[in-house]
């Protein structure tokens, strides 16, 4: 076995180690996809940059309601306003306005500053998430939960972030977390209990390949 082959196997082993944490493979879902935040932290910006890097078009809304998700691609033509942000980059030629989403990705991370800017409280954000996820379940829209903020942004039990995790992760169809976010095994425990596939990644960069596999 030459050095190059060894390197390739080594690289695959590193990627594979992440994939196989929960003993399951990466789900394949397809497009179109909606990205959003659970807790209004800036981690959703990271998620969108990941999709940009992966060359995947998407719709984004920071605080979508059930009606907006139900309106599908284009979010019913809604436009950004104070405390409300919409971005539609989905290829409308391929997925015309109104096409139902196949997946919604939630970037989990609570920010009181972010929620304040959107006129939300922790309670109202929790209630909104609950309704949106219930709707996704009814409509068989794939729910992917991502936590890339790391251990420092997790906080103790009962913290804002933990409440956002509880609101989304146990109901997700797939969880992706950075190793730093899952140091205490909290996500692994949720994944094992609820039998949800989970992938651990080293950096946000690792999410690029994953979203390609899930969505393309």
């Amino acid at each position, binding site marked *: 076995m030459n050095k190059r082959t060894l390197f390739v196997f080594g690289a695959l082993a590193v990627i594979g180690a992440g994939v196989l944490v929960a003993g399951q493979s990466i789900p394949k879902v397809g497009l179109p996809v909606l990205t959003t935040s659970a807790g209004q*932290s*800036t*981690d959703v*910006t*990271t998620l969108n*940059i*990941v999709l*940009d*890097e992966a060359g995947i078009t998407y719709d984004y809304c920071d605080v979508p309601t059930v009606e907006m998700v139900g309106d599908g691609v284009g979010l019913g033509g809604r436009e950004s306003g104070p405390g409300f942000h919409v971005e539609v980059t989905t290829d409308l030629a391929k997925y015309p306005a109104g096409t139902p989403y196949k997946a919604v990705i939630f970037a989990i*991370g609570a920010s009181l*500053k972010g929620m304040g800017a959107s006129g939300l409280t922790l309670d109202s954000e929790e209630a909104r998430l609950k309704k949106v996820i219930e709707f996704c379940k009814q409509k068989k829209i794939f729910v992917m939960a991502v936590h*890339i*903020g*790391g*251990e*420092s*942004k997790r906080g103790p039990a009962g913290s804002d972030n933990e409440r956002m995790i509880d609101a989304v992760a146990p109901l997700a169809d797939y969880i992706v977390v*950075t190793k*730093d*976010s899952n140091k205490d095994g909290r996500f692994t425990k949720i994944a094992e209990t609820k039998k949800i596939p989970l992938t651990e990644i*080293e*950096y*946000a*960069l690792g999410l*690029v390949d994953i979203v390609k596999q899930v969505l393309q």
Partner: protein
Amino acid sequence: MNAKRLIAMAGTLVLAVLLAGHLSTAGGSGTSDASDAVIAGEGCTSILVGKDASTDGSVMTTHTCDCGTCDWTWRHVPAADHKPGSTRKIYHISQYKTWPPSEGLKWDVYKKDFAGLEIPQVAHTYAYHHAMFGYMNEKQVAIGESTIGCQRKMQNPTPAAKLDLTMLTLLGIERAATAREAIRIMGSLAEKFGYGFHDDGEMLAVADPNEAWIFEICPVGPLWTPESGKPGAVWCAQRVPDDHVSVCPNESRIGEIDLANKDFFMASPNVVSLAVEMGFYDPQSGKPFSWKKAYSPVTGSATSTNGRIQRLWRFFDIVAPSQKLKPETPNMDLPFSVKPDAKVSVRDVMAMTRDRSYGTPFDPVMGIRGGPFKNPNYYRQTRVIDHGLAEYSTITQSRAGLPDPIGGIVWIAFGSQDTSCYMPLYAGMTEVPKSFMVGDHWTFSRDSVRWAFDYTDFHVQVAYSEAIKDVEAAQAKYEAELVSRIPEIDQQALALYKKKPAEATKFLTGFGINNATTVTNAWWKLGDDLLVKYNRLYLYNAEKRGMVRGQPATPEWWKKAVRAFDILMEPDKK
């Protein structure tokens, strides 16, 4: 409807329209050049004064820690020697995160947020005073701060970025003997270990007894990894000419750069290439590269934003009115620095940090905005330098010609600058007053210095235009007199230093603590006195044991405004 009523109604309508115009547009006018730019409009203000621009040859920086909910506690960190092979733990330190006092003090509890990184420790770390940031070390290296924001896709809130701004300043100030060294240390560590997490675009005013620099730093996006071999931060620094002053009011200040001029510019190796890579600069455009236009663009002027971004123009108007800079000029076109019309003293700088833009088109008490007692805190649509939300403000002085422990001073005023009092901590002090180390926003405490100043501030609000005179009298006694005594304190410390340096630091520590205690006690009493004096909005004279009815007097113009408003709101009677 009679003519008198018609006039009153028209007048009130004009007032209402003017007021509504200000209320509706303020903040609505975006200050971001591109939708992808994230600009921090409500943060801190930092002023810089070069050594030949100050009356006493000192280099000055300021920081108004304008947060509203942040921790205000201070610490002194002693110098230390470290064995070869020892490491320095890196922590994620949020500027905004606080803990209830029952859980401990911020500068103990923050160590729960270990970033998972230990870097090689240096052989010796300098002593320094710090709060939100490292402010002054025993070598007179000083720092001030202002958040500037950056392009959205540059933000890196991921744990790959190990260094936040606060941690960076602590590392810089514990390791650097000069401003340039501090910049190189902070820049290189950020490049190597990644910058961001809690912070994005930031400016630091970095000074020593010889020079002052504006250092600006941004993350490089969330997809950065240390294994990429690329810098984990992009930064640039520009020196303020010695005979100039400058300011950063939450806006990037560095424009075109000349890295060949090493005495005035420093930057990370990716300073231009990253902008090209991210699409913020096109070398084929024929335009020179501009740091601020690429990484932290802002559009608009003081006028076009109804005063939302008027601090930049206002500062230059205060220090160099002869230049007749116009509030209509886009902020990005205002100069990096100016030569002040007259040299600036530390008292001038104290006044600048208290500026409310009175008498300008952005005057917060113009017309009826401040109410009957001209309270500048009612109308917060224009962003003035002193907007009443400061945790504390600092003015650092680094002074050549004196030994470092005596030459360096950080002046601290807790709470809103207008109702507070600057107190000096010399660089050579080996501890800070205990009352500086405790307290938070949600628990009133008589042990915390900050609450003494907030206590007075609260009692000023009732009849601001009258009560502020009482505060100004106290400032004259406890602040202005002390400033004039500083040369005498310096000489006493110098005499001791020549005999035995440790005696000087002991003297300076005692002086700083005693003065802080005296001032804090005076402000507690001032708050008590204001409560009695303006009780129930009458004027009580404690000495004469009397009450003056009709005082403080409600001005006639306010009564007219009230009448006009009543007429406007009254149902039409036929």
